[in-house]
């Protein structure tokens, strides 16, 4: 009994201490109560699971909340429609001058902010100027937008030079209320509880970091009508395994991600459960891509790059990494989901013998019989493969490519690095081959069709900026400077052809994305850019049995 007393005392002390650390619910970022009761009239609740790493409710500071807010609480001027064409949203119409220097947006008259204040063209003008002047992620606007003015119900943008991709750019910038942000010098640091106020189809209700849960309620005064869903909840999990279990158990109804693919290994058991259906669409981005060092090393030689592309077994990647939901790409980089897809650009083929013959012709031969080719200096041909260690899919593809290269006598040094080190190494051009992924938005940025990743003048953490051929840069400039649809189509096709002719990089696979949802939910709309069935269009089409 003498030992029992101190043990019990110790346990009690620890229990008190432990409960003390966790006994106070975290301060919610808004004055609204946590997870309030649904009004009786609210019947339809959609619970969405995600593994994205949300940290706050600041659309400026938290990248992932910024994406989420574009789906829920905030509106952009236009959106990319399911048909891949710009679709009116807050801007009910727009005109573009012949020289592509003046863009005029006509703003919807009946939109309001969630606090009841009317949304005016002046808010739109303020937002564009605010992004241009204060948001470090909108640096391009400083170069492009000369002035923004209001003319009645129109907002007029005067550009410094023609910019044909402006509509695409504006799909991702949502309009923010001037009466809240006008006095905020540093949007990244603003902690005000009113930062969640937008004009979107849902109003922010709560965010509980410990519970990993966002709650949004339908905006009854939304200018496009009331969403079909009364409330949408986003449940955050750290692992996809936990999310899939939640999906199977009925704790969430569907899955959302931007630019990620649902893991194919989880598809068969979910299909077998009979409770989960899948919507499918060709992924707009490129889940696994390969870029070449065009400045130094053997990959400077076009034929060497061609030999590399012939040595890779694309079907094996599609089957083993993407469970058969992938296809071998063309040399044009972007998949057919993109408008103006150039089907004249040839598909990449896997031809080991042709790759070997091409390497032989370049003087890379295995003269000592060790299974590896030697270069002109007599040393084994060894390529540095730069890849992302924090992205298992990319790493696995890299290992498969390394094995394919080995099969044609090329040794590899795989450098799997975390994101930050990858960026630094990539920008130092310390690689022969670099593995990356192109997001849906990434393939549309700059002069579109993947040019944002290759144009040497383009800067950015995720881009290669490795191609400086004048013909390619001119094509990019031409595409950027025109808003004429027929001219854009011609140049889009030309850019894909130039990817083939210069080979700055290739897609390793195109995939069919699968979007799981619980049976009983119907009439989803697929949004190619925002990742699947959870999007601004589905709010108004989806129904439940």
């Amino acid at each position, binding site marked *: 009994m003498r*030992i029992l007393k101190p*043990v019990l005392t*110790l*346990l009690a002390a*620890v*229990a008190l*201490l*432990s*409960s003390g*650390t*966790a*006994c106070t*619910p*975290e301060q919610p970022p808004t004055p609204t109560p*946590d*997870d309030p009761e649904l009004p009786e009239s609210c019947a339809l609740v959609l619970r969405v699971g995600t593994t994205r790493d949300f*940290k*706050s409710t600041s659309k400026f*500071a*938290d990248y992932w909340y910024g994406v989420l807010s574009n789906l829920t609480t905030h509106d952009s001027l236009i959106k990319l429609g399911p048909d891949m064409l710009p679709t009116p949203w807050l801007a009910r119409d727009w005109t573009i001058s012949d020289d592509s220097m003046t863009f005029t947006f006509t703003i919807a008259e009946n939109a309001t902010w969630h606090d009841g204040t009317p949304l005016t063209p002046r808010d739109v003008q303020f937002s564009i100027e605010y992004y241009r002047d204060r948001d*470090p*992620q*909108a*640096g391009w606007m*400083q170069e492009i937008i000369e002035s923004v003015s209001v003319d009645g119900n129109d907002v007029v943008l005067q550009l410094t030079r023609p910019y044909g991709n402006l509509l695409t750019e504006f799909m991702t910038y949502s309009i923010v209320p001037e009466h809240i942000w006008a006095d905020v010098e*540093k949007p*990244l640091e603003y*902690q005000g509880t009113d930062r969640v106020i937008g004009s979107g189809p849902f109003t922010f209700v*709560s965010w*509980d*970091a*410990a*519970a*990993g849960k966002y*709650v949004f309620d339908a905006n009854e005064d939304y200018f496009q009508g009331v969403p079909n869903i009364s409330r949408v909840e986003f449940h*955050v*999990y*750290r*692992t996809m*395994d*936990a999310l899939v*279990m*939640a999906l199977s*158990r009925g704790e969430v109804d569907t899955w959302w991600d931007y630019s990620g693919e649902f893991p194919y290994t989880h598809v068969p058991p979910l299909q077998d459960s009979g409770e989960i259906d899948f919507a499918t669409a060709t992924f707009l981005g490129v889940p696994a891509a390969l870029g070449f060092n065009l400045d130094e090393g053997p990959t400077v030689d076009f034929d060497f790059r061609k030999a590399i592309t012939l040595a890779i077994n694309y079907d094996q990647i599609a089957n083993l990494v993407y469970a058969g939901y992938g296809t071998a790409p063309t040399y044009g980089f972007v998949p057919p989901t993109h408008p103006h897809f150039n089907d004249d650009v040839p598909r990449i083929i896997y031809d080991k013998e042709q790759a070997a013959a091409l390497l032989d012709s370049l003087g890379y031969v295995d003269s000592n019989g060790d299974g590896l080719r030697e270069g002109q200096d007599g040393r084994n041909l060894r390529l540095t493969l730069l890849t992302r260690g*924090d992205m298992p899919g990319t790493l696995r593809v890299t290992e498969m490519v390394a094995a394919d290269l080995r099969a044609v006598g090329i040794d590899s040094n795989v450098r799997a690095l975390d*994101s*930050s*080190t990858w*960026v*630094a190494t990539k920008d130092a051009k310390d690689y022969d081959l670099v593995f990356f992924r192109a*997001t849906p*938005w*990434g393939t549309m*940025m700059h002069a579109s069709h993947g040019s*944002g990743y290759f144009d040497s003048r*383009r*800067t*950015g*953490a*995720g881009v290669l900026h490795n191609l400086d051929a004048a013909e390619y840069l001119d094509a990019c400039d031409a595409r950027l400077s025109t808003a004429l649809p027929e001219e854009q189509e011609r140049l889009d096709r030309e850019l894909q052809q130039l990817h083939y002719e210069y080979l700055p990089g290739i897609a390793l696979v195109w995939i069919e994305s699968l979007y799981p949802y619980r049976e009983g939910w119907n009439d989803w709309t697929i949004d190619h850019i925002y990742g699947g069935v959870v999007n601004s269009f589905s709010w108004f089409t989806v129904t439940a049995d």
Partner: protein
Amino acid sequence: MADVSNAAPVQRHEHPTAAIGSRAVRYLAALFVIVTLNFLLPRMMPGDPVMNIVGEEAYYGSGEVLDALRADLGLDEALHVQYGRYMTGLVTGDWGYSYLYLQPVRESITLHLRWTLALVLPSVVLAALLAALLGSIAAWKRSSRTDVGLSGAHLLIYSMPHYWLAMLLLFMFSFKLGWFPLGRATSAGASELPYLIDVGWHMFLPLLVVTAFKAAYDFLIVRNSVVSILGEDYVLMAQAKGLSGMAVLFRHALRNALAPLVTVTAIQFGMVLSGALLVEVVFSWPGMGTLIYDAIGARDYPLLQSAFLIIAICVLIANFIADVLYPYLDPRTR
């Protein structure tokens, strides 16, 4: 002149207060070194925190935007200036601003540290108690079926990957049986007593995993210590006096075996604080492990240096307590 060559060495007995004071000075020196390393090491890693802030796809032209952001965060200053600002901030309580969470570092750390402590504190104590009890029993019944069973079970747990056991428990008890939630620390919406019960419900499985691993290691320490102590003369003496087996075991053998357990617990405290990362990930637990992991990926210097500092302080405190406790547990070390 007296011949002192054969005289017994003079034992200096430091006053307990002086001993604690001298240790405190040593710990302060260690803290200074740690603080400096915390500042330098993240900055030696390749990568640019500003690039992480603007994102993968953002176009930053010729770099003016990045330079402006860098200046705004004070990253354009010379290293010694940043160091001076960092040290001043530590003294004045200004730990800087997290690039990743875009909020004061203290807020980010407070939020996550509380959840880690809520998980780690009970697990450390429970594991020590379990290890002391089961380790003693296994040693007392050395080579019996009980000993083999307990030692085998603890070795099995110790050799399993943390995340694998965590996944297994999550799959069995949360997914298949539905007894526990599929992770996270709370359900939103509860308060007061229901909130505490809810936290306990969410905490049960991660607590079980962390406790099991800590106990498995501690068990082996305690068992081996008790086995060696049971061979001592004073244990024989206690038995000869007619004391009961339990009294001999827990009053004489275990008490003398506690010192190594306290030492190991103190040393492991930091590992448990940060090493629960994988368990946190599996259970979506919003603790320090995931915070540090994210901060490393984003090269969030202020957050990294403060998070490591907190862990270092916790370890130093744990070691200090162990230092202070040691003479009481083992009078021979006084």
